[in-house]
């Protein structure tokens, strides 16, 4: 009985279900408001934003890289998309063109990151940290003021963040579609399998004939585009964008990825894990606010939960090894 119980705790899904059951019980006792539709909806919004970014980040972490610039990428793309949606000297206000421009900027940024990592072999950690500074300042220079607002609430851009299809909000649908595509690409296509191979052992993969450089660049492009999409969704939800949009999100997204059991050294990880990570981070933020814990301590709680979650993961892994 005892070994069975620990086996369940050790398994990844056992942990995840136990954890959520614990949160549900605590919230049911202390704050039933947690289960109200409007609260669940606000959690879903947060999860959608973090989740899209985390799915993109998953690609980069799988090939053994890391991208700290996603928060600033989201800010830049939101600023670009929002300025081009309004009628001005440069634009006739076409929403689709505005979004395409913003996504192509993201692709350029992704290519640059990828080339720095794959061809020049610079440490991705420092490179993306440096580009993080640069992207924030580009966003700042681009809008030239503190904020851009979405004034026209009658167009497609407004719909991205606020439309509801069968009472499911649009950001959540975008997240689900994005996650589904990610899962499909990673598990069912040659591209996905080779991505895992390239991340697991770059040298072995290239000896087998996989163009690891190409896959690394692709991973960075996908990550930057995912960040850009979530930036656009976020700005549409908030009806505003500035260079502080999504500031510091990279830390939260990293947590989601790590808690989801993705190996930070590359080659291991799944979309379901990352979605769980995003769920956990979103729910945790909400719980902290609802329980009336001062926001000062939210970082402390997040940090402790992450260390605990990862320690449990490692504990489970060592248990399994001992049994074998």
């Amino acid at each position, binding site marked *: 009985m005892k070994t069975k119980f620990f086996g369940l705790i050790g398994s990844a899904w056992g942990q995840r279900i136990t954890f959520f059951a614990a949160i549900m019980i605590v919230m049911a006792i202390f704050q039933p408001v947690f289960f109200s539709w409007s609260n669940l909806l606000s959690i879903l919004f947060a999860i959608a934003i973090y989740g899209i970014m985390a799915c993109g980040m998953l690609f980069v972490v799988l090939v053994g890289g890391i991208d700290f610039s996603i928060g600033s990428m989201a800010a830049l793309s939101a600023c670009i998309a929002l300025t081009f949606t309004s009628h001005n000297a440069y634009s006739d206000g076409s929403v689709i063109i505005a979004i395409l421009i913003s996504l192509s900027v993201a692709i350029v940024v992704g290519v640059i990151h990828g080339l720095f990592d794959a061809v020049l072999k610079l440490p991705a950690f420092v490179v993306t940290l440096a580009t993080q500074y640069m992207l924030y300042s580009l966003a*700042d220079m681009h809008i030239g003021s503190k904020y851009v607002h979405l004034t026209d609430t009658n167009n497609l851009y407004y719909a991205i963040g606020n439309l509801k299809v069968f009472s499911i909000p649009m950001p959540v649908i975008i997240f689900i579609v994005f996650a589904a595509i990610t899962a499909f690409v990673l598990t069912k296509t040659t591209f996905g399998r080779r991505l895992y191979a390239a991340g697991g052992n770059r040298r072995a993969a290239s000896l087998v004939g996989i163009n690891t450089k190409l896959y690394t660049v692709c991973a960075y492009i996908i990550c930057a585009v995912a960040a850009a999409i979530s930036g656009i969704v976020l700005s549409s939800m908030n009806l505003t964008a500035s260079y502080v949009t999504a500031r510091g999100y990279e830390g939260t997204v990293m947590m989601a990825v790590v808690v989801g059991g993705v190996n930070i050294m590359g080659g291991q990880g799944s979309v379901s894990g990352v979605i769980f990570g995003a769920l956990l981070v979103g729910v945790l933020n909400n719980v902290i606010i609802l329980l009336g814990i001062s926001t000062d301590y939210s970082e402390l*709680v997040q940090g402790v939960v992450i260390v605990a979650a990862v320690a449990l993961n490692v504990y489970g892994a060592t248990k399994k090894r001992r049994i074998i």
Partner: protein
Amino acid sequence: MNNKLARKLITLALIVIIALIFGATTKSFYTLRNFQMLLREAAFIGLISLGVSFVIIGGCIDLSSGGIICFSGIVCARLAQMGAPGVVVLLGAVVAGCLCGAINGFCITKLKINDFVTTLASGYVFSGITLFLMFRDARGRIESPLIRSESFLVFGKHINGFYYITIAWIALAVIVYLVQSRTRFGLHVVSMGSSEKSSAMSGVPIGRLKFLTFVLCGAFCGLAAVFTVSYQATTYPNLGGGMGFQAVAACVIGGVVLGGGKGDATGAVFGSVFLVLILNGIYKYGLSTAWQYFIQGGIILIAIFFDALFGSLSQKRLELLSHADEIGTGGETLNAK
């Protein structure tokens, strides 16, 4: 010329070139006062990156140094406000730093959690704990009272313009250099960073060493916090914000390679001088903050680009040399025959 020396000279040359450019294009760069301030700021990042260099050379990474500084800073302020003598405050902050480092080391060596994840999360934890300890007014808002303890404020003073933090930094850099290149502990850390597996097989106590590098890193952060809190005579929740990343960036720029086994204290020193020099010079131009960040990011990129370029060049040179050796020995044997 040997490769390691050439690598250092290149960083040094970059520093000199940038200093010359800033000096020629701005008015107040070549002033004694500016150099004193520059060295004081470099000493703050420099002390941290000395500690971080131990961890990186040992093959790990520490991103939590910002959080440790934050925590040691409030320990400093609390002790000083209680009227503890300066030396006790200094020891208290260093012990607090060591404690944080020990927590990191415990999670990494005993619980076997990835170092990157541990220190990213523990950085949040340390700055979170700091908020519990912060001074608060009657309505619970955070306030930053001035510290008046004379014996503590001594640490922020200077002799003939040389701040104590600068003197401590240079002295410690020399000591760290000697420790890393001349002592058994230092050489063990380098070998651990080069290959953990083979050093473990040759009897190097990996777990204990790794733990020690994190504790040392914490101690250096505590020391940096003492001097800075004393200079500013107060502390605030954002003390050390972003320092974790900057210290690592300084190390990497100075040639302390992420992944371990390469680089030494001089690299950490040059790297931090380089970073602070850029910030100082950009500030002098009076550009908007957007441009400041842009240029700072760009220059970091260029610096590591040069580093990588040099790395690949010296690799090629080594290969060429080894080929030349083969040809040379071939020729000699022929002659002998």
